[in-house]
């Protein structure tokens, strides 16, 4: 067992006179150790970590984006997903190093506040909280599309579009469940992810065989860059929301067993796995229908692809899988958002009250409500692409800053910074990761960029007003 000392001492207090909570003394494979014999048990293994990463990601890339991406970029949307995966990998590697050096709750926020100071930390912390809300709202709207498609499938014609309504109902139900539910949600999440991977593997294997002509081929020959080169990048920016999950593994880094081994494996592993699934999915989907028709089907395009291959049973299977996947993604994001609120409140950037625990259920009801409430407002807008891009924007800022934080920490090399995993190719790899993260933002819609910048500004002003005296930066 490696005893890793923690030597970061946050100081100062906020407007309400609250000081950041004391840092632990050491981190072991099984616990986080505070003074006076107080320990926090680590209980999430590698499987659990992978399930968090994959479960958060797979909902969007496969079940919401194929239609949208194909109509934007044509067959080259495959390349867009590959670019997204590459950027995610470039960030996941540095994140792994930071996480093994600082396996604490809060993920990217924690690394950046300790490595670069409170101001950057505040921008990233609030950005993470809001980014997760935007992501969660995006998944819920996707869920609404799938649930509506179920109505369509059973032949119930509704006089209005139920997408937003269903999204709102599920959003409220999820928040209520996470406050009042005491059942073992992590085990359920593991099973859901397992089922999804099995269903998708079966479906995609059939699709690939069909696309290369084994079954007499319905392949639509098409030009790869049918929409030109530029849309490949804008589409990559749009679909990057599909890659936000690996950082969620880092938000529960404080609860991962044997973090030096499991954190890098879970983060890098989940990125690699979903990238393969995404690229194959888009390839199969576009070769079944061609980009134009696929685009017409919109959010639930995959259902039509499955119907084309396997008839009604295929459509039903993918409908069910889509419901499960979007639901689990939304759920994971709400829980991560609540962890982000806790991390901010622990460091006195939000009132201590925000991470208060409900005595009846033992759950952080204030934090969960402060995630769940705004999500409903966002769902009500129903703007899938905008929600996705703002979520990506806020995460990409964090990703870029994490890469920079790694470079800063490596250069100063403080005594407490001793990661058990070291990123290969330093300093080129983290530098490219930072550039790629910030670069991708340039390809987003102006509206998304505007909202993202406003969120960052407000976060910074809040920090100046509320917690200007709080110092979180480690001694570097």
């Amino acid at each position, binding site marked *: 067992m490696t005893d890793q000392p923690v030597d970061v001492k946050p100081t100062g207090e906020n407007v309400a006179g609250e000081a950041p909570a004391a840092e632990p003394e050491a981190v072991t494979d099984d616990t986080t150790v505070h003074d006076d014999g107080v320990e926090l048990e680590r209980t999430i293994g590698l499987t659990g970590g992978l399930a968090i990463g994959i479960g958060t990601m797979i909902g969007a890339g496969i079940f919401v984006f194929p239609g949208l991406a194909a109509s934007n970029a044509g067959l080259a949307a495959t390349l867009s997903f590959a670019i997204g995966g590459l950027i995610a990998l470039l960030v996941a590697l540095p994140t792994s190093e930071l996480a093994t050096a600082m396996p604490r709750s809060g993920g990217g926020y924690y690394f950046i506040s300790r490595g670069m100071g409170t101001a950057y930390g505040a921008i990233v912390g609030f950005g993470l909280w809001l980014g997760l809300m935007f992501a969660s709202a995006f998944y819920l709207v996707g869920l609404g599309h799938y649930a509506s498609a179920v109505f369509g499938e059973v032949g119930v014609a509704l006089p209005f579009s139920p997408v937003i309504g269903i999204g709102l109902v599920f959003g409220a139900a999820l928040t209520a469940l996470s406050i009042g539910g005491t059942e073992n949600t*992590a085990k359920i999440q593991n099973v859901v992810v397992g089922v999804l991977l099995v269903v998708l593997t079966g479906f995609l294997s059939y699709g690939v065989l069909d696309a290369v002509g084994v079954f007499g081929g319905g392949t639509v020959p098409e030009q790869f860059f049918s929409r030109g080169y530029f849309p490949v990048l804008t589409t990559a920016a749009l679909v990057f929301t599909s890659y936000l999950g690996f950082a969620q593994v880092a938000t529960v880094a404080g609860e991962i067993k044997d973090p030096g081994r499991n954190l890098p494996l879970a983060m890098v592993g989940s990125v690699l796995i979903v990238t393969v699934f995404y690229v194959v999915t888009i390839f199969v989907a576009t070769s079944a229908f061609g980009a134009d028709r696929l685009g017409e089907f919109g959010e639930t395009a995959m259902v039509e692809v499955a119907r084309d291959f396997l008839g009604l049973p295929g459509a039903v299977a993918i409908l069910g899988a889509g419901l499960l996947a979007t639901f689990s993604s939304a759920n994971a994001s709400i829980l991560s958002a609540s962890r982000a609120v*806790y991390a901010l409140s622990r460091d006195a950037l939000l009132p201590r009250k925000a991470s208060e625990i409900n005595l009846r259920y033992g759950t952080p009801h204030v934090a969960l409500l402060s995630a769940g409430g705004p999500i409903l407002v966002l769902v009500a807008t129903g703007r899938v692409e905008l929600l996705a891009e703002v979520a990506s924007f806020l995460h990409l800022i964090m990703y870029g800053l994490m890469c920079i934080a790694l470079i800063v920490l490596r250069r100063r090399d403080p005594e407490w910074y001793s990661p058990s995993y070291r990123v290969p190719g330093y300093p080129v790899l983290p530098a490219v990761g930072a550039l790629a993260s910030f670069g991708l933002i340039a390809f987003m819609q102006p509206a998304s960029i505007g909202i993202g910048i406003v969120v960052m500004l407000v976060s910074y002003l809040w920090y100046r007003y509320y917690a200007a005296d709080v110092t979180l930066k480690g001694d570097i």
Partner: protein
Amino acid sequence: MTDRPSILVPIRVLEGESVPEGVPGLLANAHVVLLGYHVIPEQTAPGQAQMQFEDRATDRLDEYETIFEEAGATVERRLVFTHDGQKTIDRMTTEHDCLAALVPNATGPIEDVLVAVRGAVGIDRLARVVAGLFGGTEASVTLYHVAEDDETDEDVGTLLDGLVERLKDLGMDTSTIETRVDRDRGALDAIVEAAEGFDTVVMGESDPSLTTFVFGLPADQVADRFLGPVLVVQREPSKQTDE
């Protein structure tokens, strides 16, 4: 008392569980590893629970520590916030090299102790617990064995005599030791029935099997039905298996 056996006393400190009556007396000669733990749902970060509940839990543990120390035990304590109570208990057992874990239930003064002997495996640890806790007391100890069909009286005699001999080596007065053997019975029911009239039960932890997976560990079942404190002697810590 040179060799105090380490006994793990796990207490769900924030759910109204406290040190039951009679338990401090039972463990007067032990090195008590007092584990206050709090199981939280997965939606909650352990650190979050710590921020809110640490002070209250620490106050209670202070109180319990004093109770054990006044009874004569030496005490070491831990406070753990966890999603998985069993993992925490197992880890503590290994880290502090505890010979046994206590299932805390109330009892009177300890006069009669039932020791359920399963077989030769782990018998040394069983002996160290019994001798360490009850060697210097007035309590009378009954070694109890439920024989299997293929076990001869001779086998049983060798097993129990060996244990008596071992206890004697550890400094126990053998005049307070009795032995008792039953046959043709389910071990579990037999132990629960025999336990009536005793103040506490010492028994071994059995290997996890399919039946334990369905019905829970025999030690837990005995504890549920016996209603008194049960000392569960832990297996020799094996090499830790990684998930």
